């Protein structure tokens, strides 16, 4: 037996019904139920009890719109049952019995006084042969107080039989007063219309046949089942918490990401980071800025030694054999002389430390490979000293890249920053971490590196037990991690870099999981031409920027 916490305030609606066509069972098929109280509450009986019900057993409760409804009646005990006598004082003789109800399969609600467990059992046994939907008990003479809870001793049945299991309907208890009122009205509305209160008025008003029967229709509003209610609440709470967590995380990540974007933009503007040289994104130079680079007429005075034809090949220092028209030639000469002249072969070495030679002698345009004609061809000179046909270099810088086609120096105007995206931030961070790791390994001093990068590398070193002396990661060393920022030990790095293209590197396997992940993050495939990400990935990135 279970009781109350899940039982919502209950109501019992008692309506009087006229059953105009039923005359003793011969015209069953045309039975019609009319709710008279809905038409005239003055004439017919109607009551509404709130919060007066205790659930004794809620098994088999078949609800429609949260209510159980049916015609009210008192089950017939066997004639020789002692309970007839025991309950006689509470049950008037002319209450509506099953015989007084239409012989249809109507929904019924049984009502009986609870005088003893044995009699209650007898009533329920009697009700079992009828289409009962619910059973109402009341303790006669207990007043208007709420009935005792279902586990109270009042509702004990001294029987070994499982009466709740055998009854295929729920059992409720109402207060004694309500039960008595119901019982009294049940005796009033048990005959035909003319015997009921205001019977003649009802006959006149509703054109009811005087032979029709008025019965009490009961509705028990027991609400939804408690377990379902709680499940929904829990589900909603979990959902709300889940959404709140996601929203908070998303906002936090957006904030962090915005903060990182600002930081990256500041470093790009300061020239600390070259996004394109790091392979993070493709940039182009504004047309107006390209136009500011000077135009000259190519002028070459051959001297004694014939210069080598293949640019980019190592050779002895050459005398300066190209002169520029205009007075700008003088000003650029000094800077050019100071430039380093290490050979860059096939782009394998860093463009920033090893700018190519041959800014002195450039017989052909490196874009179209056409030779310049002395004193005829107009050329454009970039700040790094390399010269090209204006058509070629304008198209290249304006639509393809921001770097010099020969030495990969950045041609972006100082302080220029492109729109920084989250993807750029992610890549830049990954590369910076890698770079920090490489530096740490080269310096052999990860404690002194300081800053988040050093700490990160140190943590990783501890976690993965890496051998510091192992020159791993050489495939992604300085060539791919270029930054214009000066490195701590340039001589050592340069040595390493110079030996890289031909010298076979360490034979030790270097594949730790984390390292592979870093490589992946630092990989250059996805973002150069950002394609191939699925809709789901794009959505995920939008909600959780920086998630990688």
């Amino acid at each position, binding site marked *: 037996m279970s009781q109350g916490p899940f039982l919502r305030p209950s109501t019992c609606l008692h309506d009087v019904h006229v059953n105009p066509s039923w005359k003793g069972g011969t015209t069953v098929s045309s039975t019609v139920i009319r709710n008279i109280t809905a038409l005239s509450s003055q004439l017919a009986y109607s009551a509404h009890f709130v919060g007066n019900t205790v659930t004794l057993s809620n098994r088999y409760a078949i609800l429609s719109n949260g209510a159980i409804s049916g015609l009210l009646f008192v089950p017939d005990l066997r004639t020789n049952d002692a309970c007839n006598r025991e309950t006689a004082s509470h049950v008037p003789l002319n209450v509506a019995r099953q015989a007084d109800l239409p012989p249809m399969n109507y929904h019924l609600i049984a009502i009986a006084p609870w005088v003893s467990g044995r009699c209650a059992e007898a009533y329920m046994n009697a009700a079992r042969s009828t289409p009962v939907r619910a059973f109402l008990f009341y303790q006669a003479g207990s007043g208007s107080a709420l009935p005792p809870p279902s586990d109270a001793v009042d509702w004990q049945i001294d029987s070994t039989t499982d009466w709740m299991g055998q009854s295929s309907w729920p059992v409720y208890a109402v207060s004694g007063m309500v039960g008595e009122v119901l019982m009294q009205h049940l005796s009033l509305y048990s005959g035909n219309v003319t015997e009921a209160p205001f019977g003649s008025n009802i006959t006149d008003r509703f054109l009811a046949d005087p032979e029709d029967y008025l019965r009490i229709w009961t509705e028990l509003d027991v609400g939804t089942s408690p377990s379902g209610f709680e499940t929904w609440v829990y589900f909603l709470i979990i959902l709300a918490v889940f959404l709140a967590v996601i929203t908070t995380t998303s906002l936090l990540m957006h904030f962090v990401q915005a903060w990182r974007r600002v930081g990256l933009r500041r470093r790009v503007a300061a020239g600390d980071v070259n996004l394109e040289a790091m*392979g993070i994104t493709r940039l182009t130079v504004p047309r107006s800025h390209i136009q500011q680079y000077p135009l000259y007429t190519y002028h070459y005075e051959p001297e004694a030694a014939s210069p080598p034809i293949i640019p*980019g090949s190592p050779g002895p220092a050459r005398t300066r054999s190209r002169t520029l028209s205009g007075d700008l030639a003088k000003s650029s000469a000094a800077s050019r002389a100071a430039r380093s002249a290490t050979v860059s072969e096939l782009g394998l070495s860093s463009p920033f430390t090893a700018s190519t030679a041959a800014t002195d002698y450039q017989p052909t345009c490196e*874009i*179209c490979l*056409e030779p310049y004609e002395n004193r005829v061809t107009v050329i454009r000179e970039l700040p790094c000293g390399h010269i090209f046909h204006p*058509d070629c270099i304008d198209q290249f810088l304006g639509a393809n890249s921001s770097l010099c086609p020969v030495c990969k120096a950045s041609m972006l105007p100082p302080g220029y920053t492109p729109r920084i995206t989250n993807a750029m931030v992610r890549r830049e961070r990954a590369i910076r971490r890698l770079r920090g790791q490489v530096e740490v390994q080269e310096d052999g001093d990860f404690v002194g590196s300081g800053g988040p990068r050093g700490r990160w590398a140190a943590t990783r070193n501890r976690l993965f037990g890496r051998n510091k002396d192992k020159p791993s990661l050489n495939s992604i060393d300085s060539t791919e991690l270029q930054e214009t920022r000066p490195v701590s030990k340039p001589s050592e790095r340069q040595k390493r870099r110079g030996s890289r293209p031909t010298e*076979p*590197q360490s034979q030790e396997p270097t594949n730790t999981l984390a390292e592979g992940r870093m490589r992946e993050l630092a990989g*250059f495939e996805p973002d150069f*031409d950002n394609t191939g990400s699925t809709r789901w990935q794009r959505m995920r990135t939008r909600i959780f920027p920086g998630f990688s």
Partner: protein
Amino acid sequence: MASQNKRIAKELAECTTSPPAGITITLPNDSDLHRWHVTLAGPDNTVYAGGQFGLIVTLPVDYPFRAPVVTFATRIYHPNVTNDSLGNVCLGPLKAENWKPSTRLAGVLEAVRALLVEPQPDDPLEARIADEFRQDRAEFEKNARAYVVRYAKGPVKFDAAVGAAAAGAEAAGGAATGAAVVRP
């Protein structure tokens, strides 16, 4: 566009008149300068000696500005070449961030040849072969020679990888036209 074709023609002439060692170049379609069929002889004193390797070089429409795509048409057992019918090569100068318009195809082809002389197991495409190269050189050499005997003898067939290379070329072309539309 015209100047770009001119550059390709110039490079082709350079490569055919004075080709890099062990390299011969043909055009499968004379009117299409953007696809080269290259035959690379396995360098002497390497496990690939005696083999003839087909390379397909695909030049994007905006060639000197974008890197060419080089694939092996002949199967090869090598840490830096995918061991499948695509034959993708991991070549430093051809990576998007390393590519410079001043890099020439002759140099690229020489870099491929250098890769056969000196595999780079630390930047592998085939991690298993790279491990074998580092740890069990004898086994690697045996396998590589077996591949040469099996795939790289006789005249080079370029058909096997043509489909893959064509797909790559289309992708490159698509990206290029897309960029052209975005930046008028």
